[in-house]
């Protein structure tokens, strides 16, 4: 039942958004087309802007794998990761996600490329990236804007939210896509 509802949501969300949003905007007498172009340009710039961090991360990960180091780490952590339901390729994402958004995107892209987007690892990486944030960046920007220098419990709460997001992602992906 829950699965069917999620499936329905997943398959309808995108087409509904693509058709519904412009219709709504038109009904509200907005300039749909210029607004679209404005945002699309921003999307183009985003894609170009992430090339440098993507190169950095994908090269480092490519080296880490080709050298056999990832296999070694995965073997060492196997008891822990299998208990948590984490495939080895997803491991670097947990480490990098709170630190750097571009780097996390690089890890996801790398998992999708090497494991395939429809693999368990690929889906798990996608859900993990979608359901967590670059905690250190958010804190730096938000606290910095208000000139707050003592964060108190904000960092701990943010990292706990990340951890909960990772755990929930593993649970949901296994329940939803699991073999």
């Amino acid at each position, binding site marked *: 039942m829950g699965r069917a509802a999620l499936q329905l949501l997943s398959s309808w969300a995108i087409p509904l958004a693509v058709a519904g949003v412009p219709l709504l905007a038109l009904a509200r007498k907005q300039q749909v087309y210029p607004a679209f172009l404005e945002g699309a340009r921003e999307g183009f710039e985003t*894609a170009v802007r992430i090339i440098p961090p993507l190169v950095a991360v994908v090269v480092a990960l490519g*080296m880490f794998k080709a050298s056999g180091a990832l296999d070694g780490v995965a073997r060492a952590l196997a008891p822990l990761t299998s208990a948590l339901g984490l495939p080895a390729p997803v491991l670097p994402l947990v480490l990098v996600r709170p630190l750097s958004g571009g780097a996390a995107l690089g890890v996801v892209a790398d998992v999708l490329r090497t494991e395939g*987007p429809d693999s368990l690892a690929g889906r798990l990486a996608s859900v993990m990236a979608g359901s967590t944030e670059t905690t250190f960046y958010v804190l730096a920007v938000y*606290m910095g804007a208000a000139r707050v220098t003592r964060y108190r*419990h904000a960092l701990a709460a943010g990292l706990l*939210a990340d951890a*909960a997001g990772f755990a*929930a992602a593993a649970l949901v992906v296994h329940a939803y896509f699991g073999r």
Partner: protein
Amino acid sequence: MSVLWTLLVAASVAAAAVNGRMAELTAAIATSAQAAVTLALGLVGVLALWLGLMRVAERAGLVALVARALRPALRRLFRGVPDDHPALGAIVLNVSANLLGLGNAATPFGVEAMRRLEELNPRPGTATDAQALLCALNTASVQLVPATVIALRAAAGARDPADVVGPVLLASACGAATAVVAAKLLARAFPAPPAGAP
């Protein structure tokens, strides 16, 4: 990130030396650099489409619509912020924009909310409970349309790039719930210093 990246690269070279895989390593360096650019360019189309749609959604007043729906719940979470204070309005817009996946639009609202909350802060420079909660909520990333992830999956040739939408919503809701509970509980564990203290 500097330390992490450098260690990763150095450890790889060391491991390749131990495993006798220098040739594979050299090949991987070149092919990964190439692959990274191919990936980014593969993203251009879908990312442009989504951010274009997002901008249309913003103009259509969708953010304002969601904001109105969220206001009562957020008022309860951010007790101590006066009802008519501009901070609450900015918080509502920040959370709504996040919910709609408008990361770039959410940040200015969030920054504005933090500045307004600082006006209410009896201890400037030390985060208030409300400021910590707002930051935690933003790190939890609740969103209805995870556009960037969908774009990445589409570029990688997924059969149904959007099939992760439901799971992402569920997982990020867990993250957000944790953020709220943790912020509320930890606020007691890390009390603010008395007003006027250095």
